[in-house]
Every structure is written in C-alpha cells, then in structure tokens.
C-alpha cells in the first residue's frame, strides 16, 4: 500500500532535508507524527540561524556600521518574504513570541479600548486555549459577553448558527481557528469573514495550524487580524506573526512598551514608532525571524499546493487504515478534503496516555493530551485523545508504523 501512495503525483519525500529524521533511538528510526505540536526543521533553517550568529550578529534598527546594516537587511528581508508568503503588507506584519502573544496583543490593545458592556465576543468550541482565555480576560475587563459557536456532529461549525449569533447585532469580534488542532476541520474562513463583516463584526483568525499546510491568501480571506506561529511552520521557536489591518493598528494603543516602539520619549509621555515597529518593543527575536524566513523559503520552493496535496493524501491513507482497525474511534470530519493533516483518535479500553506511551516505545511520536482544548474535549465526551499529525516530511511508511504500533498496543492490553 505504501509504495502505491509514495508513487502518487502528490507524494513528496523530503526526509533527507531534515537532519533529525536520521536519528535512531534504541535502533529504531524516528516516526514523527506530532507536527501539530511543533514541526521539525530543515537543514536550511538551521544553517540560517547559524549563519546569522556566526557572520552577521548585531542589533537591528540602531547601528550605522556595516555589520548592523547586514543584520537589519536580513531581519527586514525576512519580514518582507514572510508577509508576501501569505499575501499581506510587510508594514502591518508584526512579530510576536508566538500565536498566543499575537492573540493577546489584540485582546489587550484592541479589545480593552474597543469592547464595552453590551458587546459580545464570539468564539467557537473548537478553539485552542490561546484563543479562549485571552477573550475570557478581555470580557471580564470590559464587561463584554463571551459566546461560543457549537461544534456539530461532523466536527464542523454551523453557518446558520453563525448567522443567528451575528443577527443579534452585538458581536464586536469573531475569533476562530482556521484549522482545528484537534479535529483537523478546515473552517471556511473567507465565507465566515464575509458574513461577519456584513454584520459589522471584526474577525481574528488563529492560523497556527493553517499556514504550515495550506495555501493561505490573506487578501482573499480578508480577516482583520490573522496570527500564526513559526515553530509549527518549519521555523524556530520564539517567533510568531500577527498580520492586521493597518488602519486598526494605527488607532490601537501599544501593547508592550519600551525601546524600539517609540518615536520620541519625553519625561511624562512618548510618541509611537511607525508600523510595524510600534508593536515590537525591545530587541526582537532576530535570529528566529531570519530562521523563519528560511523556513518560508523552503515551503515556498516546495510549493504549498504540493505540501497540501501530499498531506491530504497521507491523511486519506491514514483515515482508511485506521477505519480498518477494530476498536478505533476517529474524531473530526470524515474526509481528508475537509481536514488538515491531523487525526485525533481513541482506542477502546486504552487511555490516550497509555497509547502515547506504548507508541513511543516504537519511536512513533504522537500527542496524548487534551491538546489545550478542554472545552472541545467536553463536547467530544473525552478527557483526552491521541493525535497523529503530519508534516511535509512524513511518508506513507510512517502511517504504516502508526498502524502497526496501535496493533501492538492493543495486544499489550489484551484487547
């Protein structure tokens, strides 16, 4: 079966580009199926990090000497390529620590200045805690109401319920994920944004799971805020991205204050730097941004349409093989076309933690947890799930290893 899939036109085999995949633990190769948590890094990203520190290390936005100008050019050049990758202006593309900080930037800077009692923030039951807790705090701070769109049977949102909620006329902000980190559901974000805008609501989208695996065109999606994180998109940890509408950013107060984000500092007040630097206080994560630039170059060279086709084919293959097993329950939409490269599942009679432990012994790396989505776990009626997720470097043989390891786990538990 795996040979058939490897020979398909969509198949990629880029394992050789990822040094860590050459590792063996206890004589077994690494079967890395946890890319939704964090992706592995290609050699070109590691080289970019090393090259910056080895050859170009200087602080940015300050120095007039040639070395500092090199660092500046590398950093701002990466910003330009990262922004272009998702079709958004570089001047309204802000670097944060991660997507959590990107969402918090909006929840503090925009929400606290713009939400009032009588307003509502609408989120969904499939959000990661990073797109729930900031809105709980913002609602508490402003007196706004926090409401949820439900997740239906097939792991999808209802556009009818969306319209009903928007029709109440009080939704100031809709915040939702582009791709669910648990169910894999790809939400129709362009259509959702269109409906929200017609109702006068702004929209924030958590693109942490989307940017690494889909062709994302932010002009087509037309969201007001779109956040994602570098380390899930083959880049280093420590850098996230917030793309936002420039006119909103201009009117928003700063989030974090300090160096680099100011124009002038008087004794009692200051004025703010231009975009995007108004929202980038302190020395930036220079190496990480340069590393993320290299990651985006790598994905761009593969072509996101090809990455998506490859991961969709792997997902379809995994869904087919899991469906053939006894005692396995798969969560989320039934077809690979409606979902990203992530599959949450439960094994009858084996707790997800034990699944994770037993699969780990075969070097099959899956996540076993609530995936920072406890409200969704309650909807699914479970405390946790096991989750396998794909990156461009996975191959059909990884799915075969997963299936074999599940069979062995069931044998250990005498099921």
């Amino acid at each position: 079966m795996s040979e058939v899939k490897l020979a398909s036109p969509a198949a990629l085999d880029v394992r050789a580009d990822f040094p860590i995949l050459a590792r063996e633990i206890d004589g077994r190769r690494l079967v890395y199926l946890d890319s939704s948590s964090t992706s592995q890094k290609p050699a070109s990203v590691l080289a970019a990090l090393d090259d910056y520190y080895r050859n170009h290390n200087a602080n940015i936005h300050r120095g007039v000497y040639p070395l500092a100008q090199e660092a500046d050019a590398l950093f701002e050049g990466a910003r330009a390529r990262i922004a272009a990758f998702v079709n958004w202006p570089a001047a309204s593309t802000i670097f944060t620590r991660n997507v959590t900080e990107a969402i918090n930037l909006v929840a503090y800077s925009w929400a606290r200045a713009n939400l009032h009692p009588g307003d509502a923030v609408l989120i969904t039951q499939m959000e990661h805690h990073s797109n729930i807790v900031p809105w709980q705090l913002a609602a508490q701070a402003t007196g706004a109401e926090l409401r949820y769109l439900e997740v239906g049977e097939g792991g999808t949102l209802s556009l009818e319920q969306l319209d009903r909620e928007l029709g109440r006329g009080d939704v100031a902000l809709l915040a939702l994920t582009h791709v669910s980190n648990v169910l894999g559901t790809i939400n129709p974000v362009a259509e959702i944004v269109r409906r929200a805008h017609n109702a006068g609501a702004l929209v924030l989208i958590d693109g942490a799971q989307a940017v690494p695996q889909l062709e994302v065109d932010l002009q087509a999606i037309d969201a007001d805020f779109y956040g994602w994180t570098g380390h899930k998109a083959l880049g280093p940890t420590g850098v996230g991205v917030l793309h936002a509408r420039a006119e909103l950013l201009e009117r928003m107060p700063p989030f974090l204050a300090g160096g680099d984000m100011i124009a002038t500092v008087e004794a009692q007040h200051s004025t703010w730097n231009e975009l995007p630097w108004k929202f980038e206080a302190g020395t930036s994560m220079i190496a990480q941004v340069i590393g993320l630039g290299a990651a985006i170059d790598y994905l761009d060279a593969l072509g996101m349409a090809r990455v998506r086709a490859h991961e969709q084919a792997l997902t379809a293959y995994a869904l087919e093989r899991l469906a053939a097993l006894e005692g396995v329950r798969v969560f989320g939409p039934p077809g690979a076309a409606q979902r990203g490269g992530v599959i949450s599942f439960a094994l009858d009679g084996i707790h997800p933690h034990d699944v994770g432990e037993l699969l780990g012994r075969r070097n099959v790396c899956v996540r076993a947890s609530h995936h920072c989505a406890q409200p969704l776990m309650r909807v699914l009626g479970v405390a946790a799930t096991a989750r396998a997720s794909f990156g461009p470097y996975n191959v059909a043989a990884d799915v075969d290893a997963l299936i074999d390891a599940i069979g062995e786990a069931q044998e250990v538990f005498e099921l």
Partner: protein
Amino acid sequence: MDDLYRDFILEHYKRPRNFGELDEHDHEAHEVNPLCGDELGVQIAVADGRIADLRFQGHGCAISQAAASMASEQLIGMEVDEVAGLGAGWMLDLLGIDVSATRRKCALLSLKVVRHALTGDGSWPSDAA
C-alpha cells in the same frame, strides 16, 4: 511480559477495586491532573481513627487507575495518622514497576487525593516520607 503494563497492573485497571460511591463518608476530595485532564475523587469513612471504608471515582490511564485500586486495598483498615504520613515511595513500592518521570504523577494521583481528603494538604506526595 511488558515491564510497565504487567498483568497485575492491567488486571487492576480493567477491574479496579473499591471504585464507586460511598454515601456515608467523613472525608472527600477531588483532584485533576492538569497534564492530561484525568480526574480522581475519593470518599472516605473513618471509624476509631482508622479508614473504615473508601471509594474512588474518576477516569485515567492504566497507571493511575491501577495505583488507586492497589492503594485502596492497603488503605482500608490503616490508621488515619499513618496515611497522612505516607510518601511517594510507599506508592511506588506498592506498584512495583519502574515509573518514568513523566508518568510519576499518574502513579501518585490517588495518594494525593486521599491525603487531601484526610488532611486538607493537596500537595504532591514527596519522596521524604
């Protein structure tokens, strides 16, 4: 034979002892393992300074469920003062398997909730006692 999922662990996991509800009880507590969302509650009846009866409720992995089941058999009849002084070593010895650092909280959750119910101290059992 698997080193961790020994036959007696799986036996206790599949048929846990002293699980259910204890309507007449003197102490109770409820704990959540934040790592995995597992939950474990306990109700304890005390008579003459000893645990007269005890029931666990909840759900969790094989290690946490087997640990609760095995502990329950030892705890019933034990003096309350003695239980309050039990440490991590008691539980791990009772389990009799090598528990990795990441699964240590699974093994200790039941002792934590029992001590919480009896003494109000909800901290994780330490190695000291």
